[in-house]
């Protein structure tokens, strides 16, 4: 069996198992933590395709998440069908991203990082001023609220996101993105249009971040409108990706899993301690293990394999 096929079967198997979870347990705390994991997978993976694959570090990922959330919430509560509101949320994030990206991605270096950070903050403040209220769900929405459809929405979103990154990573488009990340001039000299690669990457990234925001708006009963614009979302995505393994497909998945579990574990006793722990982990990873947990796993595997071969020959 080719490794391609193997990966697809493995992924499919895990997705099916995850789809069974609501049938096996009625515990809301488990469902909620799974939702959080899926949310983080989507958030981190969408950041990863832009930063990890294409080398463009966005510090304004929260802007895309927030735009998706606010658009979806307003349209959905305003009476539009949810799926329409949800898709529109993703598209609004893309439009915004491309407007910002068009000038910023032409510049090299840290301009894109700074530009996206600045714009995300401006959006957060603007939304906080215009809509300082809590986004409450109307009574009839709360009356029919059910966690299970939320679970599946997040699961499907995470699966699609992972599949998209996998397909892109194995395609010509992905090769061009990685080439731009590795050396922009060499990529150009080989016929790659770096600006185009970055814009496509940004479009995919912001679309899925926007959808994740929309799913959040569907899931969360009550929150301040500017909460999804908080820089925390950006740094969550960044920490998860780096700790898991930047530029890999498995990295953000592993990272999201750990991050959500840590978060739940410490939430009651020491709120925000998970950020501290993950921050420390982040520094350790950057210093000692630039490939993240994914690299740690493959190193351990290599060690084990080396041991086996040793004994085999002796």
């Amino acid at each position, binding site marked *: 069996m080719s490794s391609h096929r193997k990966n697809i079967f493995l992924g499919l198997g895990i997705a099916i198992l995850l789809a069974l979870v609501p049938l096996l347990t009625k515990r809301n705390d488990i469902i909620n933590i799974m939702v959080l994991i899926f949310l983080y997978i989507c958030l981190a993976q969408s950041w990863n395709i832009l930063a990890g694959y294409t080398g463009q570090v966005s510090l304004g990922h929260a802007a895309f998440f927030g735009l998706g959330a606010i658009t979806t919430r307003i349209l959905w509560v305003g009476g539009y069908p949810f799926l329409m509101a949800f898709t529109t949320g993703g598209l609004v994030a893309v439009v915004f991203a491309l407007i910002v990206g068009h000038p910023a991605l032409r510049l090299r270096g840290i301009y894109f990082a700074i530009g996206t950070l600045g714009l995300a903050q401006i959006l957060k403040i603007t939304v906080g001023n215009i809509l300082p209220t809590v986004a409450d769900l109307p009574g009839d929405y709360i009356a029919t609220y059910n966690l299970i459809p939320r679970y599946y929405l997040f699961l499907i979103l995470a699966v699609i996101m992972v599949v998209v990154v996998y397909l892109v990573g194995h395609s010509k488009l992905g090769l061009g993105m990685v080439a731009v990340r590795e050396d922009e001039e060499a990529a150009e*000299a080989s016929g790659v249009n770096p600006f185009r690669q970055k814009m496509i990457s940004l479009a995919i990234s912001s679309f899925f971040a926007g959808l994740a925001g929309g799913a959040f708006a569907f899931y969360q009963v009550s929150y301040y409108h500017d909460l999804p614009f908080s820089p925390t979302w950006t740094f969550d995505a960044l920490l998860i990706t780096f700790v898991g393994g930047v530029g890999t497909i498995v990295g953000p998945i592993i990272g999201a899993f750990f991050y959500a579990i840590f978060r739940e574990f410490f939430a009651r006793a020491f709120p925000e301690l998970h950020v501290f722990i993950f921050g420390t982990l982040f520094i350790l990873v950057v210093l000692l293990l630039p490939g993240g947990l994914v690299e740690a796993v493959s190193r351990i595997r290599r060690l084990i394999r080396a041991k086996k071969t040793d004994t085999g020959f002796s």
Partner: protein
Amino acid sequence: MGKQSKTPLLQVEKLVKSFGGLMALFGVNFEIHPGEIFSVIGPNGSGKTTLFNIITGFLKANSGKVTFMGKDITGLPPHQICRQGIARIFQLVKPFHQLTTLQNVMVGRAYGKDPATNLRKSKEEVVEILNFVGLGNKIEVVASQLTMAERKRLELARALAAHPQLLLLDELMAGLNSAETEIAMELVKKIRGSGITVMMVEHIMKAVLGISDRIMALNIGEKIAEGLPKDVVKNQLVIEAYLGK
């Protein structure tokens, strides 16, 4: 050359480039004909790399014109110039460090001239190119683990994968030992033999004289000589530029 010289592959006219007050190129004119090996020589800082950078779109000239196969390509961005059929290697090699040699070369194949859409179908050709430059046994090795000589060959393979009609080699042989230089010279001859026109910058005189059809000499941004190798080396201005007066 006779018949061929009527339609140059590349034509460079009155190229001027300054960096602030520094004149790097001062009205350079020349033509390259299909099928030849055209070498550019000159002391360090005479403007050779700058010339390459303008032809390949990495720098914009202050004035002047570059025509390739009858088309004005002046000021086009690098990726478009590559897709028109001009590929280059960098004097300071620029491998995609974390990618395997196969992936490195695949980038050229997927995005250069006649770009491949199906990467799997192009694998065979890419492997063939890697074999041609002598990296056939390093297909799955990541570029960061290659030696300097291997990186130079990788650079060459990536450029060849873009299917160029004109290949620009900026100091391909710099930093190679004499055995490696011999191999590189053979490669360049074979490349020309396959129908690709070569423009190269080289300091190793043995290599330049051994394989060039024509040579142009630059000094401080000006063309001081052009012609057959045996004539250019006897040129008084060239001798002075290299040895001092």
